[in-house]
């Protein structure tokens, strides 16, 4: 057990945790925008998959990581439009449409992968960048300042998203539409427009989450690359109480425990691997059970808005 407490192990765990948290941060904060406006988008995982594919395909063929990122953003935006059309304009049940979107993304990304790439390949994606001076700080520098741009971006997104949601008119509109769309509507806010914006922004971030896997953290694409990460991101939104900072703590907790259990296995600490694998989930459920009553979900979550009703 002493080995797990050594400095190098702790550095390793925290470094891994930050890296692992990256896709959850993008996808989770994206979902927070969507849900704050009253739309549950369960299609996050599907959006991540198809954007991950798009980014990978573009980088494989052009070698340009920025074009790859742009492709992921564009595809995420298109998926957001689709989700908006189905759940906002056509007022379909949000949960079901999200699941549909997930399956669409899963199937289409596998199909395109098979027809255009065919076999597992690797690309050179976003590389780790040492931030001058800061990365020289012992321990802290190693943990925090030696990551790829997309990892830094994920953590910068936390204050940025907080600022948009809490300090701008747009943030206020998003939240008012999510809390009481009828009241917002009576004050002249275009409910559908705000929801379209939020869902599309959320989907773009889910798209970047996908790209962070395929062209930054893993640098490859395979069928069902995300393995359900999008759903964990949705869970983290509830965990974080619809607040970017809460989502960040949730993502870091989940990822740190995951990194911790991997290190325990590597160091040969005698606990059954099944228990180790369960740890992140157990801890997240426990934390969720403790925190669940503190926050309330957006009141109009999951409810299509019909003008003139109520």
């Amino acid at each position, binding site marked *: 057990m002493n080995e797990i407490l050594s400095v*190098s*192990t702790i550095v*390793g765990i925290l*470094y*891994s945790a930050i*890296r*692992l948290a990256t*896709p959850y941060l993008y996808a989770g904060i994206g979902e927070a925008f969507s849900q704050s406006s009253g739309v549950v988008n369960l299609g996050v995982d599907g959006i991540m998959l198809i954007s991950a594919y798009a980014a990978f395909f573009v980088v494989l063929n052009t070698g340009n990581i920025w074009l790859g990122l742009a492709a992921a953003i564009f595809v995420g935006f298109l998926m957001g439009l689709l989700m908006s059309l189905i759940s906002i304009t056509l007022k379909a049940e949000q949960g079901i449409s999200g699941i549909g979107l997930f399956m669409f993304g899963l199937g289409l990304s*596998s199909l395109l992968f*098979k027809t255009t790439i*065919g*076999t*597992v*390949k*690797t690309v050179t994606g976003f590389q780790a960048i040492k931030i001058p001076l800061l990365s020289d700080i012992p321990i802290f520098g190693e943990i925090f300042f030696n990551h790829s741009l997309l990892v830094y971006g994920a953590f910068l997104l936390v204050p940025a998203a907080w600022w948009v949601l809490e300090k701008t008119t747009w943030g206020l509109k998003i939240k008012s539409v999510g809390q009481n769309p009828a009241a917002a509507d009576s004050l002249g806010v275009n409910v559908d427009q705000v929801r379209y914006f939020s869902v599309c922004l959320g989907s773009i971030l889910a798209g970047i989450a996908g790209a962070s*896997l395929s062209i930054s*953290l*893993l*640098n*490859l694409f*395979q*069928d*069902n*690359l*995300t*393995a359900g*990460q999008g759903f964990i991101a949705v869970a983290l939104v509830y965990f974080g109480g619809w607040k970017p900072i809460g989502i960040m703590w949730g993502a870091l907790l989940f990822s740190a425990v*995951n*990194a911790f259990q*991997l*290190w325990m*296995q*590597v*160091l*040969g600490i005698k606990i059954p*691997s*099944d228990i*180790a*694998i*369960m740890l992140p989930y157990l801890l997240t459920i426990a934390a969720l059970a403790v925190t669940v009553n503190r926050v309330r979900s957006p009141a109009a979550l999951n409810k299509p808005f019909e003008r003139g009703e109520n």
Partner: protein
Amino acid sequence: MKSKLFVLFLLLTILVSACAPAATEAPAAKLRVALIMPSAITDMAFSQSMYSALVAVQKEMGGEAAMEIKYSENMFKVPDAAAAIRDYASQGFDIVVAHGSQYGASVEEVAKDFPKVTFAWGTDVNTFGLPNVYAYTAAAEQGGYINGVMAAMLTKTKTIGVTGPVEVGDAKTYIDGFVQGVASVNADIKVSKTWTGSFSDVALMTEAAKTHIAAGADVLTGSSQSVVGSIGAAKENGTVLWFGTQSDQATLASNLVVASQVYDWSGMIKDIVSKRKAGTLGGEKYVLELKNDGLKISFNSGYPLTAEAKAAAEKAIADIKSGAIKVNP
């Protein structure tokens, strides 16, 4: 309304019963083989090994005119796979290969209903006592041992990382063999094992590999379709070596993959086909071994393997074939 439905039902029944005999009596001009597998035919691992074997046999038999291959990929969910197995059997396929140890119960159930169809499933050794079921498995521990011998000779840090998926089946036996192989060369080498609990979670597999590397490992191995993540981590590091299993993984990192244990199911498939022609539909089990050429060690020509390590590997192969070395699964 009810009577209308009844008439419709009656018509359908007549239609179906009229069609059914015609379908079964149609001459079987070509052999029809169906494959159900948990991941994709391009997974660089388990599913690909079986698909490649079928394609190789098809080629040998004279192409698509002689043998038809239909497959269903990504059938990780057993109920979906069970439905596919039944579908293929009822469509009149001659041989249905259910390529996954999780499909056993489904095969047992469906095989009873289609006594004229040959079923093959694995990796397992249980034919359920049914005359139309073959079971197959791979003695993955044998190639694991060979890879272990070479790994032990190549590690400089005396630390080797194993990235496993779930502690079952050939994933476990491969790794057990690997550990024995390492120990046969140098018992002081530390072999760390991680399990991600998933055959498909590439992200966690990548992180597991990076953790091994951070802890000092300079040689890695592992199994399942998610090891593409481990190989990616080795490639990103640039000097960490990789030993593959199930399929030849050299193309993923041409200068870091030392060797791969390759499952070659084609001999078994050919045997099943010729037995079926002779009237035997099943009832036996197959074990891929080094001895019967079902398992092969594919050395990667892109990696400059030392003569010493290669000689040790070849000696171990010969010893396992002759029985001088026994590897415990």
